[in-house]
Structure formats: structure tokens, C-alpha cells
């Protein structure tokens, strides 16, 4: 009998990517769930002996799902699949009974070695046939593209969060990235973490590749900059310069790690622009009005980072002009396929 395997992720793109990387030789019956609630129901119906579980999901996230499995003693071996690879995320999940942790985007040689470590599957890693069976995209509707970008952002966000967590030595709360297409002058409406009544500071960094050009923006409420500055352990006094230093330190880490993850997933190499200060202690409106002069449609990926233990929150916006969205999407599909080919090509050497 085939082994019931459940893939639980809010992103259909991520579910497909996961399904595509299951080894061909592994005899499984794959079911899907878009959140923890659905997953619990599937496990109860006997469809989740093994579950690949994402962390950041709406309705019921990975932590809550794991908690429910433990409390109700449900028969499922959980392997966490996440873009959030902070040490604390890992230890929290492992302490609740997850058997292992695998980083997005999925490397199927690693997946196979985990499966073999737990005696679940011991064969070839190749997933070429599986990849043929599950097509990454069933169409090219805008929703599907946004969905794919949300997943890319999810991975980028996790890697950046991991790096920031190391430097601040705090757990970073990661949200579900908010992806949408808006007019550039409406971007401020997407800022969930920014208090519009309070003053704001912002940094912008451009990134350029032959096909995709965009801008990364980091926005802080000023009260948060001060808190962050203390956390970064700046030993200098609270002058304006050291606030800028805190702003720049965080921007360097977050933008740098995000762009690295983006370039890895899209197989492009970005030239990074020297960041500029869009505004220090300004009205949000002032920043928007003074800096956004072009009125065009843009793809905005909004990530609302928070360090809830310190009451710090800030926003990262990755903005790509409308005209580059299709190019970015096709790069993404191409590099997904290329990645699978190289992985299945390499596994002969690895195993």
C-alpha cells in the first residue's frame, strides 16, 4: 500500500514545489492541506502518516498545528519545511515532536537523506518523473503569479530573518508576506506595521539585473529605531548619526539577505545600489510625496517584521515595476526547473 503523505502549506506554489521534489522511487499517496486546520482533518482521515509542514500560514500556523498533533496524539511524523530557519523556530518545533527541519527551497538530495535517516525511504533521490507529473503552473493568471511571488518572498523573508535573529540575538516574528499589485502612490496603504500618526524614517536600495529591476524599501517608526539602536548595542550616544547607523545596519542585513535569496531563486545576479535615506523623522506622507513621482503599477511584496519581545516592528517592501513582473515570473519558472535538473543531475555524485 502507498504511504499517505500530506503536504501542508498555504501557498499552492510551495505545495507543488514540494510534491515535485519527492523522489520518484518513493511509493506515496500525496494529499494537500492549505493550513493546519485542514491538515488535522486529513491526518484524522488517515492521509498524513508523514507530513511536510510549513510554519507561516493563516488560520492555523505550523506551531499551532504541531501543538494540536501533540495534544491529540495524532499519528503523523512531521518534517518541517520552512523559509524560517531561525534556531528558535527549529528548537520550538523539535521540542514539540517534529522529527526534522528542511529549508526552503527544497533540495531533494537533502530531503532524500532525511527520509533515509529515519528509515522512511532508502532509494534514489531523482524526482524527474514527479516533476513531470506535477506542473508548476496550471496557467498564468495574475493570482497564480502573485502566489508564486509570495512563496519566493516567504523564503527570502525567512533567510533575512535568520540573519537578523543572529545579530540581534532575538527571535524575529515572521508574518505571511503580503503580495499585491498596486499603483505606486497607494503603497503606503500596504504598511501594516507603520503607525501613520508617528514620524517615520526610511531607507531605499535599488537592485538591478538585465530582466528585473526593483527597489527595496525599509520603513521604521522612529520609536522603533531608538529601541533597535539599543538592541544593536551601539555604544555611541543617541545622536542622529547613530540612529542612521542602526537604520543602515538593519537595512544592510535585511536587504542583503533578501536579495541574496531572491537572486538564488530567480537565478539572476543583482547589482546593488548604494542605499539612500529617503527620510529621517518625516511624515510618511512626506516621504511618499517627495519620493514617488512616477505613477505606475508596481508589484509590492510587503513583509512586516517584528521583534515582539522588544516591541519593535518595521517594514520591508520589495517593489518591482509592473513591466518586469512577467520577466520575473518566467525567470522563476525557469530557475525552478533548472534547479530540479541540477539536483537530479548531482545526486548520483552525492549518494
Amino acid at each position, binding site marked *: 500500500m502507498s504511504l499517505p503523505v500530506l503536504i501542508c502549506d498555504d501557498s499552492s506554489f510551495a505545495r507543488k514545489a514540494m510534491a515535485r521534489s519527492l523522489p520518484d522511487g518513493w511509493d506515496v499517496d500525496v494529499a494537500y492541506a492549505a493550513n493546519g486546520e485542514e491538515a488535522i482533518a486529513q491526518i484524522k482521515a488517515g492521509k498524513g502518516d508523514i507530513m511536510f509542514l510549513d510554519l507561516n500560514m493563516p488560520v492555523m500556523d505550523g506551531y499551532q498545528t504541531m501543538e494540536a498533533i501533540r495534544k491529540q496524539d495524532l499519528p503523523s511524523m512531521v518534517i518541517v519545511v520552512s523559509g524560517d530557519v531561525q534556531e528558535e523556530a527549529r528548537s520550538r518545533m523539535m521540542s514539540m515532536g517534529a522529527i526534522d527541519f528542511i529549508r526552503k527551497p527544497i533540495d531533494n538530495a537533502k530531503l532524500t537523506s532525511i527520509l533515509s535517516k529515519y528509515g522512511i525511504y532508502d532509494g534514489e533521490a531523482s524526482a524527474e518523473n514527479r516533476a513531470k507529473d506535477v506542473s508548476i503552473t496550471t496557467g498564468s493568471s495574475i493570482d497564480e503569479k502573485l502566489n508564486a511571488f509570495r512563496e519566493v518572498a516567504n523564503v527570502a523573508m525567512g533567510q533575512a530573518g535568520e540573519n537578523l535573529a543572529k545579530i540581534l540575538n532575538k527571535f524575529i516574528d515572521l508574518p505571511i508576506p503580503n503580495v499585491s499589485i498596486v499603483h505606486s502612490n497607494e503603497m503606503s496603504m500596504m504598511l501594516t506595521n507603520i503607525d501613520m500618526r508617528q514620524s517615520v524614517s526610511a531607507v531605499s536600495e535599488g537592485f538591478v539585473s538585465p530582466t528585473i529591476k526593483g527597489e527595496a524599501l525599509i520603513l521604521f517608526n522612529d520609536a522603533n529605531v531608538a529601541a533597535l539602536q539599543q538592541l544593536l548595542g551601539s555604544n555611541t550616544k543617541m545622536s542622529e548619526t547613530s540612529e542612521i547607523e542602526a537604520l543602515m545596519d538593519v537595512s544592510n542585513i535585511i536587504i542583503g539577505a533578501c536579495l*541574496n535569496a531572491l537572486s538564488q531563486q530567480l537565478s539572476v545576479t543583482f547589482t546593488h545600489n548604494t542605499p539612500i535615506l529617503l527620510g529621517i523623522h518625516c511624515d510618511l506622507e512626506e516621504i511618499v510625496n517627495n519620493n514617488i513621482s512616477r505613477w505606475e503599477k508596481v508589484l509590492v511584496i510587503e513583509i512586516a517584521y517584528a521583534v515582539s519581545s522588544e516591541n519593535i516592528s518595521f517594514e520591508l517592501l520589495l517593489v518591482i515595476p509592473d513591466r518586469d513582473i512577467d520577466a520575473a515570473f518566467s525567470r522563476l519558472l525557469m530557475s525552478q526547473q533548472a534547479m530540479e535538473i541540477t539536483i537530479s543531475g548531482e545526486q548520483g555524485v552525492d549518494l
Partner: protein
Amino acid sequence: MAVDKPAWQNALLNSIEVGIVVVDTNFQVEEFNQFMENHSGVQASDIIGKPIFPFFEEIDQAWFENKCQPVFSMNTPVFVIWEQRQYLFKFGSSRPITSSSDYMYQNITILPICANNGQVERICILVYDMTDQAMSKARVDKLNDELKVISRVDGLTGLYNRRYWQERFEREFKLTIRNNKPISVLMLDIDHFKAVNDTHGHQAGDKVIQSLAMLIRKATRETDICGRYGGEEFAILLPDTNTETAKIVAERIRKVSERYMVKHDSIEMHFTVSIGIAEFSPEYKRPLVWLEAADQALYKAKENGRNQVIFAE
């Protein structure tokens, strides 16, 4: 040591107007271009193969190593901008005669350089001269500050003009709703001002207005918001001030005005003022309703015979 490069690549490296320094994980210098030589006076042949820090005492070593850490560990570029730190290398300005800064403003980019194994074994430090941008930004900021003052201030009296006073009044109104502190507003008008103008001319009238503005400034605190509201009408917002204290301030202004003598040419003039006071109360739902209450009190002060202070009911 760096591998030998073709001559034209060397020429490129040395003629570019950007400082280029390559160091290894121990901060030993591997590349040091002409821009760096010319500005620092340090010869490439002297510094290559040696640690960078002893040559540049202006670099805070702990700070710089801290900045470079993510470049090595995360394989990402790190940027240090002149707004954050004027310079990394203390170089003189590139234009010694016409530049208004003695030292160069610099943007620094620290780039990872990967070896074949994917490890970052070197970093490249790029030094961009930003002095002109920094100087022109300083000029623009200064102009903007001047413009801000000009657009906010009434030319005759030096107090805030009506537009800006109202803006501040509305902002304080919003704050007051949230923080619940006492705050009072005064409306003030010169008594029989038309007669001054009619008898002694507009210039004399202006002199009276200026004198009163000076008296108001002396009688109020720096945190009070004083504006010329109309021709001979003034508005004063007193934060953290209840009715009793506002009355003391108002009476002070009334009394000093009564005693003050304005001299214009050979004419000596006296004037008095009427003042209406309204302390903020939550029943004022909009800023203008509150101001209207002070204006009503002022009207009553005029009705009752002028030269007096009246509270809003």
C-alpha cells in the same frame, strides 16, 4: 598577492575615480589602487601584504570589523553612507580650492569576493567621493530651513502668521485630545485701533502692532505659540496652562500694554487691549469651535468696555 593583470586592466583600475582596496579575512591588503595612493600618500608597494589598520589610524578597527562581519558570513554587500559617518579614510577634499569642505565625504561599499568554493575569502572596499552631493545637500537644507521660517512668520511682527498658527493650533488640538493636559487659547485685539490709523497714519499703526508683538513675546514662554491672526488681532496658544494661569499671562499682557508708550516720529501713543480666554474642554469637538469660544469672550470684553480679560463660558 593579487594575480598579475593585463596592463589595460591595471590602467582601468588606476584611472577610475573610485578608491579600491581589497583585503583578506585578516584585513591584509591585496589591492590598493591609484586613487587610494594619491589621496592617502601611502604607496601600494608599501601597504600590500600588510594589515590595513596601522596605516589608517582614523579607522575604528572594532567598528569596521563589525561592519565587515555580514560581508564575510552572509556573502552580502554592506554599505556605509556619508550621512552615517563622514568618511572611512580621512582624505582631503578632491578640490582643495573651491570645495567648502576640508575633508572628503565618502560612501563606502564593502563587497564580498568569493573563492571557487563559495567561501568569502576577500572583501573589496570601494570608496566613492560624495563631497559635492553632501555640500549641495547642506545648501538645500539651509535654504529649506530659511524658506520654512519665511513661510511661517509674519513679516511685520516676527510672530507666526495666521496660516502657520492655525496649523500649529490644529496639531495641538489633536494632541490635547489624546494626552488630556490643560491648554488655553487667548484671542487678543487692540482697542480702538482704527482711530490710531486714522489719526496718526498707517505707519504709526504698524508701530503699535510691532510694539504689542514685542510685549507678547516678552510675556510668554518659548513653548507658547503666538501668532498675528489678522490686522490688529493676535492669537496665543498656551500649552500646559489652565484658565487661572492663562489669566495671569493675559493680565500681564493687558497691564504692560496699558503702561507702554509707543513713539512714532515725535508722536507718543498709548494703547490698550481686550483679551478673551478659552481653556480646552472636551466639548469642543473641532479646533475652530474652541477658537470661536475665545473669540466670543473677546467680543464680550469689548462689549463690557474694553481693556479687560474675559473667560469663555
